[in-house]
Structure formats: C-alpha cells, structure tokens
C-alpha cells in the first residue's frame, strides 16, 4: 500500500488509461502546456505528445461536444472541464447529446466519454467559481456521476469510468487534491453504485459524498464525546445511487443526516431523504435531516464564505438534534 494524494491517484489512473489504450486522449483548456489548472495533467503533454494531450480553445460546448463525437466514433476521450461552473456552457452537449444519443437511436450508439471536472468552494473564488453542481447531472438518465472523496476511491472509480461504455461525469473536489490516503498496490476497481461504509456506527447514519465525507468523519469524532456512535456512508457515485447501503444503515441506526456542500435548498440530499422515507420510514426514530450549504451566491469575503460550507460542528449539531 502506498500513500497517495488524491491528485496523484487521479494522475495514476489517467496514465494507466493513456498507456493501455492508444485511443484514449485527454482534451481540455490548459491541460497541456500549462499542466492543468490543478496540475493534474502536469507533464503529460511532454510524455504523451500533443496528439493525445490536447489544449483546446476556451469553448466548452465545442470541445466537450468534440469529445462526445469522438466517443460516439468509438474512441475513449477523457475531457476536462476546468471547473463544474463552466460546464453550464457545455450542458446542452452533455444533457442533450451525450446522455440521450443512445436512447434516441434505439440503442445503436454508445458514448464512452469521461468528463472530468472540479466542484466545490472554499477557495475564495466567489459566486461564479464556487458552485457544487453535480446534483444537476445526477438526475439526467443516460449519464453517470462519480464523486470520489479520497485517493483510493478516486483511482478505483476512475478505472471504472474509463472502462464504462457510457458518459461519465467524474467530479473532483479542489480541496481534496492534496489529501492523502492508502492506495492498494494491486489492481482494483470500484464499481459504480457501491457506496462505502466509511465508518461504522450504531446510532445515526451520516450520508455524504465528495469533500463532505472527511468532514462527516470529523463530525463523527466530535460526536464520540457525546456518546453518539455515528456511521458514515460515502455514496461514491450519485448516479447510479446505491440506496441499499444507506437504507440498510438507517434500518440499523434509525436516524439519518445527509450532508452535502451545495445549496441546501433543492439539493441532492432531498433525493436521499425521499428514498429513506420510501424505504426505511418505519425504522426512523426521527426525521431524516440534512446539512447543506447556505442558500446564497458564494461571497468572496473569507468570514462570509466560511459560513456557506457545512463544517464538522454543523453536522454534529444536526445529529445531536436527533437525540
């Protein structure tokens, strides 16, 4: 087992894909000469050549659509959208072509593209650069949406993403790139739709994804002092969603709190709560609750920005309200 950063785990997965299949290429803004705005593809252009590591103009709809077209032609593009905010400019291509071409063609087409992008706030980048929009994609039939919270998952899920014959949105969190975790040496993959029990506990199920997983684990530690034994579930993929794992957990703990970074109102947590209502209502000792981001455009000013993002304390407080 090696200790790898989230960034290096993703790099490893990308290099593996590049080496094993000549029809894999990486395309995006400043992925080449600049090295990627989060340095994920640094050095790749030198190593794999300009034919395969392709700097694009700033034209999200154009180059994402190009990737989709290449995927439809049977290639395996890995397209980077610098941040998920900018993905709105490519949403037409993603939602109307990548997600639907197979269905509309009666199954004649497949779209094996991986779209890597970066979500989340916490970098003082203000309202247009701090959004967590993965939940929008997670509701589009035909797409898959992957949200790794740590290095080992990132690598295992990236392998599955590259192998998947469907369009996959692979969503990373900018504040996780430097985080480290144990990554197995032997080859492994993590199938989509398999949530992970990140910590097992008996009293409450905390359900999270992306950067809210380590935050929830910290909350669980805080809760130990209150004698509350929290289970933390990492959803790992939002679409497909592994409902069974968290439903089983709620059956056991009888309490649920869903945590995410995006605006609380209308967030993906609502889906999880709806599922819990439908499938585990009788197990609930109290309402299924949630902790999301503040319902505001993200402010630049640090003290305000900090108020927009769920902290371990906020999660712990919400859990405590159930006891």
């Amino acid at each position, binding site marked *: 087992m090696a200790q790898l950063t989230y960034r290096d785990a993703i790099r490893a997965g990308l290099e593996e894909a590049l080496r094993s299949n000549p*029809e894999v*290429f990486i395309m995006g803004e400043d992925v080449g000469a600049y090295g990627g705005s989060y340095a994920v593809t640094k050095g790749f252009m030198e190593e794999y050549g300009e*034919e395969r590591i392709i700097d*694009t*103009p700033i*034209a999200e*709809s*154009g*180059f*994402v*659509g*190009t*990737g*989709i*077209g*290449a*995927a*439809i*032609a*049977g*290639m395996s*593009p890995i397209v980077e959208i610098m941040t998920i905010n900018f993905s709105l400019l490519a949403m*037409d*291509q993603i939602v*109307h*072509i990548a997600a639907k*071409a*197979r*269905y*509309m*063609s*009666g*199954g*004649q*087409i*497949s779209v*094996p593209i991986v779209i890597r992008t970066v979500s989340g706030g916490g970098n003082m980048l203000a309202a247009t650069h701090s959004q967590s929009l993965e939940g929008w994609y997670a509701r589009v*039939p*035909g797409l*898959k949406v992957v949200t790794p919270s740590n290095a080992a998952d990132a690598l295992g899920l990236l392998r599955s993403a590259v192998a998947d*014959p*469907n369009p996959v949105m692979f969503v990373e969190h900018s504040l996780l790139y430097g985080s480290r975790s144990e990554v197995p040496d032997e080859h492994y993959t993590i199938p989509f739709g398999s949530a992970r029990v990140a910590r097992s506990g008996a009293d409450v199920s905390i359900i999270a994804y992306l950067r809210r997983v380590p935050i929830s684990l910290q909350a669980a530690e805080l809760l130990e002092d209150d004698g509350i034994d929290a289970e933390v579930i990492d959803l790992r993929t939002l679409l497909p969603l592994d409902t069974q794992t968290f439903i089983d957990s709620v059956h056991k703990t009888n309490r649920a709190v869903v945590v995410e970074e995006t605006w609380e109102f209308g967030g993906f947590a609502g889906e999880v709560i709806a599922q819990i209502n439908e499938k585990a209502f009788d197990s609930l000792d109290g309402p299924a609750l949630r902790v999301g981001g503040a319902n505001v455009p993200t402010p630049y000013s640090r003290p305000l920005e900090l108020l927009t993002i769920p902290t371990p304390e906020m999660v712990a407080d919400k859990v405590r309200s159930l006891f």
Partner: protein
Amino acid sequence: MSTSIDSTLPRSELLTMLRTMKLIRRFEERSAEHYGRGNIGGFLHLYIGEEAVAVGVISPLRDDDKIVTHYRDHGHALARGMDTAACMAELFGKSTGVSGGKGGSMHFFDVEKGFMGGHAIVGGQLPLAVGLAFANRYRGEDSLVVCFLGDGAVNEGEFHESMNLASLWNLPVLFLLENNGFGMGTRVERASAQPVIHRLADRHNVRSHREENGQDVFAVREAALDAIEYIRDGNGPYFLEVMTYRFRGHSMADPIEYRQQHEVEPWLELDPIKLLSDRLLANDLTTADEINAIDEDVENEVNEAIQFALESPFPKPDELYSDIYA
C-alpha cells in the same frame, strides 16, 4: 438554369437520383397525410423543395463516410439509402423504426449506414460532427463527415466554436448549410448581420463556397464533389452553403403567415424534381413512360412502407427502460 446534364454520370445513376428525389417527396407528402390522421405525432419538418441538396451531396459519398444532421432529416436519410419502411415506421413510433420508435421524425439514426442522427437542438450537431471527424483524423482514416445545418443554426455560438475547432485541427468535415432563407419564421437578413453565411466560416479559415443553384441537383453535386475532393486531399474542413427553399411551413404546426404567396411562387417554379425530369426528357435520357414507371414504383415503395408501419408493433412497455445505458 442550365439545361445540360452532368455527362460523367451514367444514365442509370441519373435515374436513381431522380427516383430518390421523388421518393423523398412522396414519403413526405404521405407522412403529412398520416400526420393529419394522427398516425404520426410530434413535430414533422418537411424537406419538400430541398430534395436536390440531400441527393446532390449524399450521392457522391462513400459508404465509410458519416452524416450528421438536424431535425429536418428525412431527405438525408432516404438519400443515404436508409430503409424507407423503417423510416416510416419510425414516424409511426413503431419498434421497427430506424430508432426503435424512440427518436421519431427529428431523430433518425442508422449507424450501419453512417447516419449519426438527426439532432433537434439547433446547432447541437456541429460539435458532434467535429468529434467524429476528429476521430477520423486521429486514426488516420481518409473518410469524412458531412454535417448538415440550417441558416438559423449559424447564429448559435456552437456554430463558431465548431468552425474554429475544425479549422484549427484541420479536420475532415464538410459543413453543408441548407440556406432556405428562414429559421422558422425569421428571414436570414433579420437574424444574421452577415447574410452571406459561408463568409463566416471563411473567416475561421475554413475553405468555403456558396452554390446559388441549390435546386439543381447537378450543380449541388458538382459543388459537393469539389468539397469532398478538397477534404479527402487532407486540406481540412470545407463549408458549402447551398441556396434552396422550404416549400412548406417550418413544421406541420406552422401557419406560414410570415411570407407572401408572391414570394413563394417563383421558388415553386424551381421545383428540383421538375427541373431534373424536364432536363432528362429534354436530353432524351428518359421518357414520359419511364418517369411514370418511376412514379409508380415510388408510390408502391411508400405504400408498402406505410403498410409496414401500420402493421408493425409499438415498442413493448419494458422497452421504456432499455437503451438508456450500454
């Protein structure tokens, strides 16, 4: 309008072109009838009047070339040799349709024939075509991609993004603009500050040309051949603007109140099918009898297609959930 005939083509091929144009016409006239009867729903965008474009451009393509188009796609599909009955069945929403009944009029697909779809979001097919051509170039294949679009689509940002990418990366794609003068009810001049549209592509360093005689299938074919040769020689993308006219409304729902009969009539005179058959007759390449036989043959084919569509089953309820993921 010239009355001469493209001499490089054998008589049989000339008649095939005529037949294909007639097939498109009858297919659509009968579709409109079945739309009225409720056998076909949704939007139905007729290609009537523009047949010379599809046939002129598609007839010289190779089997390994690909086609991407917009929602007004029946003409392109039939010109590509897609099965008439399966096309009709698609309009009827039947499981035997070219897209299993899931796509409908706007979303014909036939991947075996390199027909990579009608696409219903204006401009959305352009990046897709760029991507298909990107794959060709990456793989060193010498096949090309034809991407049909309308004059209205050029005002979408995706148009320019696609021109720039195709040009920058020297991709083998033929952008084929069907300039029929209108995007829905809006005239080109009211929508585009640059109404000579191919000049926009030219400015992205995409080789471009406007073919004024879009109702003349030979003129279109000549222009397409030039473009195809240019692309196959590895010179990168080509933009061909073809001037044509939509004889009918934008879709069946269009009351067509935005244009006057006196504008439409001269265009109706330029019926591409009439032009072609008149020329074939004038050059003694066919006879009235032969044309009648073609008409009958086409009528039979369309009748059989309708019969097939009527008799085909609707998709079974569980097909609702198939084809979402591979």
